């Protein structure tokens, strides 16, 4: 974030461009979508596909290493009476198993605990990268990553529904929800089909992406404002301090949102799996 924000500040009138500065009149350099685009560190080609290694790639790799490393460490020698890191790992595991899998899917839910567990912790850590100093980009605020996650969930629950309910039964349950007077099906069937098969994976990805994107943009805007307003005028000092305060408060708020969005993503994945496993009655 830092380098790109500074670049956008520099583009709009130099790094010394502050509010009412003597240098030159310059406007507020509001950060936009460009702060999510990074220069390639490495570019290579495999077949006809271009690969661009950017900072986001490293953030993703770091998140994976952190999650895998922590849980390998926590459960390296599992004991009956857990202590230290194993305690933390077990709390996380029980949270997903009892709070999400068993609560939503029911007694078949235990099979899906590893799936949901991996999603929750990977997304949480990827979100957390947004406020980790020097990383400072939530990996999930790059649209490709939530899309990949949502696609994995989609490609899990659709075949699962066909496998466990039978193809016709699964799509019948989706298209003709029971307990509706039959003329309503002319209206309801297309809506249900589109909302289940097209809108559902789309909103699943967009929900995570847009939350992290908006949060990161908000912090960046107030950080840039604090820098821009810094000048030897009364309005400048008050505005700069207030903007910095808001940026810090928003960082605290983001910590909450990051955990909440990881939870909601996992919760919805569990709801979709549950809907695929059990037909509605």
């Amino acid at each position, binding site marked *: 974030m830092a380098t790109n924000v500074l670049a956008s500040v520099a583009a709009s009138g130099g790094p010394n461009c502050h509010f009412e500065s003597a240098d030159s009149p310059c406007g507020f350099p509001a950060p936009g979508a460009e702060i999510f685009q990074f220069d390639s560190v490495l570019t290579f080609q495999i077949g006809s596909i271009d690969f661009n290694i950017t900072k986001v790639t490293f953030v993703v790799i770091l998140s994976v290493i952190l999650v895998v490393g922590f849980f390998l460490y926590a459960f390296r020698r599992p004991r009956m009476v857990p202590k230290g890191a194993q305690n933390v790992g077990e709390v996380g595991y029980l949270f997903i198993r009892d709070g999400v899998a068993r*609560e939503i899917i029911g007694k078949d839910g235990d099979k899906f605990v590893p799936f949901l567990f991996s999603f929750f912790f990977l997304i949480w850590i990827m979100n957390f990268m947004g406020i980790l100093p020097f990383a400072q980009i939530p990996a999930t605020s790059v649209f490709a990553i939530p899309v990949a996650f949502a696609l994995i969930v989609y490609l899990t629950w659709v075949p699962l529904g066909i496998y466990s309910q039978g193809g016709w039964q699964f799509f019948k349950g989706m298209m003709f929800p029971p307990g509706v007077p039959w003329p309503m099906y002319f209206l309801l069937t297309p809506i249900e089909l589109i909302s289940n098969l097209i809108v559902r994976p789309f909103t699943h990805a967009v929900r995570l992406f847009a939350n992290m994107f908006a949060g990161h943009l908000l912090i960046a805007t107030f950080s840039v404002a604090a820098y821009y307003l810094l000048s030897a005028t009364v309005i400048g000092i008050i505005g700069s301090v207030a903007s910095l305060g808001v940026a810090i408060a928003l960082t605290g708020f983001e910590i909450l949102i990051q955990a909440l969005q990881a939870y909601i993503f996992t919760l919805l994945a569990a709801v979709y799996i549950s809907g695929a496993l059990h037909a509605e009655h």
Partner: protein
Amino acid sequence: MSLLAEVTGSIGSIGYGLAAIGPGIGIGIIFGQGVQAIARQPEAYGVIRQNMLLGFALAEALALIGFVVPFVFGK
């Protein structure tokens, strides 16, 4: 065709404002009713909170689409 009125500038932000009305009302209802339900039946806190967050996530998606679309189709 003569123009009667025209909006210029950042139309995307107006679009986001419009897109936020419905979800704003919806999320208000969801959390209002959720808190009321918890107050009436504190022992059902876990189930209520879960369904509250689920409803919140579904309503919020609309506002977020309104937020993202100006970035995608802007300029």
